[in-house]
């Protein structure tokens, strides 16, 4: 039976069917649903690790122990896990290991659009790329087979479009016999202890492995030639294949299911049969460069963009511009004229978001904030404009320490989410304590990994499988590191936040403020939602509450008689009743919960 599955669901299904026993990941769009789906299969052990490096080490350990395993991450996660990726390439494994990297052309939800096929070449690891969900499922099993046959990890590279598109998939059964007794761990010190002497022995082995994989690629069934009109030959991979097939229905195709290493003979042969050879690939000219290195004339990025995601329109228009298609191939498009540009809908902190309370106060104290990655990054937007850097996960604390050591005129702090703190904030906080800077570190403990869709982490007391576990307390961690000034505040209480900030800024030495309040979208928070109301008699349209940047506060049609300014109104469908705006209003025009309840009782 065929079912519609997203690429991510298909990868999870593939891992299940091909006998993966251990899977580890750290969430990251567009890869997150893979482990969330896999967690539903009891036959597979799956977990959220605190970061991608740990996840990959876990998967490597399982593969050393003789079990098929998988590590999953978004593209930038492989930067974090790169050290592990390289040693696993050097040592090889006792059972199949597939490393899934979901790249993000167009940066739908990322800080860069790095092309992780480069990592495959960098670490001498084969790279497979599906072009739909069926292949995504099948290639997991194929990757594990290759991993075992060639004693190498295998990179399975997805992109956002593959991960988040649903296509039809034929389901199969789980192909594995559960062991009746525990296997013996095979000790091989020369292979697995990468001291220089042993590593020097391994390096030629992995170079040879790539040569053998080149031969293997020549007859690899997922490298497919589809001959058509020979005036144009197209080499392509991943979802770009689908766009190319649609735009050039007549052309000849070499579709690569393995993009590293490439099959030289197959490419030479294909090139010799066509008049003009082009590569259609998203992001870097990876295939193009490899082909050119073979001494074959090829075009690619001179025609198609190197930046962003493709779609059939981009492929078609680039082709028309390069004369590969006649101008008449263009679609008829009507882009209507607009009187004024349409208002945008950018992502924005939710009504009732606990992060808002912290940023209102760092802003009030005119602080420079080294920020991090998560929902709270959105505090960089006006009207808050209160977060001033965001580079990669965990960067905030190290940066703030550097700022502190360099010295600046303003007050400053690092702000980091709870999940991000566990990911890479921990060693940076240790550094703050150890090297004694005056850094203030604010940990935004909203009890979840919100940005990526609310995953568990070590502070939540829950595992991926929904089992209770020990919840780490940030305050204990900070004290264990030797930081004595530790505050816990409720970000819905602005005075409390301000008090803690002032205390930490005035004092010398490192300080930690744990801002604790669950994300407003979590079920336990939703239960407490209630809408507040603006007392229109008291409101004079001063506009102070608009500076809170809450989507629930809107300009009313009512104007203040004296000032002529619009009064505030609260949208009852959006307001959660966090009372942050009520604390900001100098005229007490926004009713607190208690007043609302009293009003309700007397009505």
């Amino acid at each position, binding site marked *: 039976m*065929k079912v*519609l599955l997203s690429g991510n669901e298909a990868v999870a299904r593939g891992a299940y069917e091909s006998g993966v026993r251990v899977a580890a990941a750290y969430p990251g*769009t*567009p890869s997150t649903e893979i482990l969330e789906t896999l967690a539903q299969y009891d036959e597979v052990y799956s977990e959220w690790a605190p970061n991608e490096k740990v996840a990959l080490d876990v998967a490597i350990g399982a593969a050393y122990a003789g079990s098929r395993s998988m590590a999953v991450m978004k593209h930038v996660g492989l930067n974090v896990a790169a050290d592990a990726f390289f040693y696993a390439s050097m040592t090889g494994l006792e059972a199949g290991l597939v490393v899934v990297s979901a790249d993000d052309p167009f940066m*739908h*939800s990322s800080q860069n659009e790095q092309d992780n096929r480069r990592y495959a070449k960098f670490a001498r690891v084969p790279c497979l790329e599906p072009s*739909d969900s069926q292949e995504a499922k099948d290639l997991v099993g194929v990757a594990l087979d290759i991993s075992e046959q060639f004693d190498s990890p295998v990179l399975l590279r997805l992109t956002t*479009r593959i991960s*988040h*598109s*649903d*296509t*039809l998939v034929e389901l199969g059964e789980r192909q594995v016999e559960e062991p009746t007794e525990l296997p013996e761990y095979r000790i091989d010190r020369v292979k697995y202890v990468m001291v220089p002497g042993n590593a020097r022995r391994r390096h030629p082995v992995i170079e040879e492995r790539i040569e053998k994989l080149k031969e293997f690629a020549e007859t690899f069934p997922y490298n497919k030639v589809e001959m058509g009109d020979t005036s144009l030959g197209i080499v392509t991979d991943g*979802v770009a294949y*689908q*766009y190319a*097939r*649609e735009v050039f229905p007549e052309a000849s195709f070499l579709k690569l299911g393995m993009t590293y290493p490439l099959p030289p003979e197959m490419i030479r042969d294909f090139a010799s049969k066509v008049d003009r050879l082009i590569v259609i690939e998203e992001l870097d000219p990876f295939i193009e460069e490899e082909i050119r290195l073979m001494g074959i004339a090829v075009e690619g990025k001179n025609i198609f963009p190197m930046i962003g995601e493709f*779609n*059939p*329109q*981009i492929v*078609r228009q680039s082709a028309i511009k390069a004369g590969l298609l006649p101008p008449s191939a263009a*679609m*008829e*498009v*009507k*882009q*209507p*004229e*607009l*009187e*004024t540009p*349409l*208002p*945008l*809908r*950018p*992502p*924005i*902190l*939710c*009504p009732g*978001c606990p992060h808002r309370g912290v940023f209102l106060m760092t802003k009030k104290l005119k602080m420079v904030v080294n920020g991090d990655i998560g*929902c709270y990054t959105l505090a960089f937007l006006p009207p808050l404009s209160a977060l001033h850097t965001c580079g990669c996960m965990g960067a905030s604390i190290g940066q703030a320490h550097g700022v502190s050591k360099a010295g600046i005129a303003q007050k400053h702090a690092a702000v980091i989410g709870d999940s991000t703190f566990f990911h890479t904030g921990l060693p940076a906080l240790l550094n703050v304590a150890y090297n004694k800077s005056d850094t203030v570190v604010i940990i935004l403990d909203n009890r979840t990994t*919100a*940005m*990526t*869709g*609310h995953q568990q982490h070590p502070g939540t007391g829950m595992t991926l499988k929904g089992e209770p576990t020990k919840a780490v307390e940030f305050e204990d961690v900070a004290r264990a590191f030797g930081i004595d000034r530790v505050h816990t505040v409720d970000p819905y209480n602005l005075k409390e936040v301000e008090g803690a900030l002032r205390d930490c800024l005035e004092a010398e030495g490192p300080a930690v403020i744990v801002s604790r309040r669950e*994300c407003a*979208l979590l079920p336990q928070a939703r239960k407490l939602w209630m809408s507040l109301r603006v007392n229109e008699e008291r409101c004079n349209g001063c506009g102070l509450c*608009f500076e809170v*940047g809450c*989507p629930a*506060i*809107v*300009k009313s049609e009512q104007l203040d008689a004296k000032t002529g300014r*619009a009064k505030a109104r609260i*949208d009852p469908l959006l307001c959660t009743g966090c009372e942050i705006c009520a604390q900001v209003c100098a005229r007490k025009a926004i009713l607190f919960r208690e007043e609302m309840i009293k009003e309700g009782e007397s009505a």
Partner: protein
Amino acid sequence: MKTMNFLVTGVGGQGALLASGILADVGVKAGYDVKKSEVHGMAQRGGSVTSTVRWGEKVYSPLIGQGEADYLLALEKLEALRYVGMLRPGGIAVVGDLGIPPLSVSSGNDVYPGDEEVRRVLSEVTDDYHFIPSIRLAEELGNARAHNVVLLGALSTFIEDVPPEVWLQSIAERVPKKFVELNKRAFQAGREARSSR
């Protein structure tokens, strides 16, 4: 079999992705090759959401370019305008008669386009656009959230090859059990709203 392209648009939390999920499933049940693609927003509420669904004999690309959608299903008017350029000139637009002002509008910095402007812009691409009072009809049935299925009902009247039973079955499989009856009625209400014009 001719390939049919749908673009579903709306605001995060409105149920656009449920609608496109049903639409994709209906295509499978009707025997088509189907691809569906969506842009997942981040966790926050209120961003713009789009999803492409394609039915055909053999579908390659999960995405479409401008001018390639045969049908635009918009759960909100501003999102209809934002994506109407994706519609093939003369294509069919089914639009929920609902406006959700973004923050920049409610804070008074931008203006939400008036109904006349909405009609004018849509009509630059097609005369075949249909406003459906989806929220009102769903509210009459007891739950405004079913407005997405009202719109699917209206859309279904344009796709004559697929009988309503197929849609209803897919709806029954995809909405929570206790809302199945409500949504079936919402679907019918959408069909009637369209035919009574």
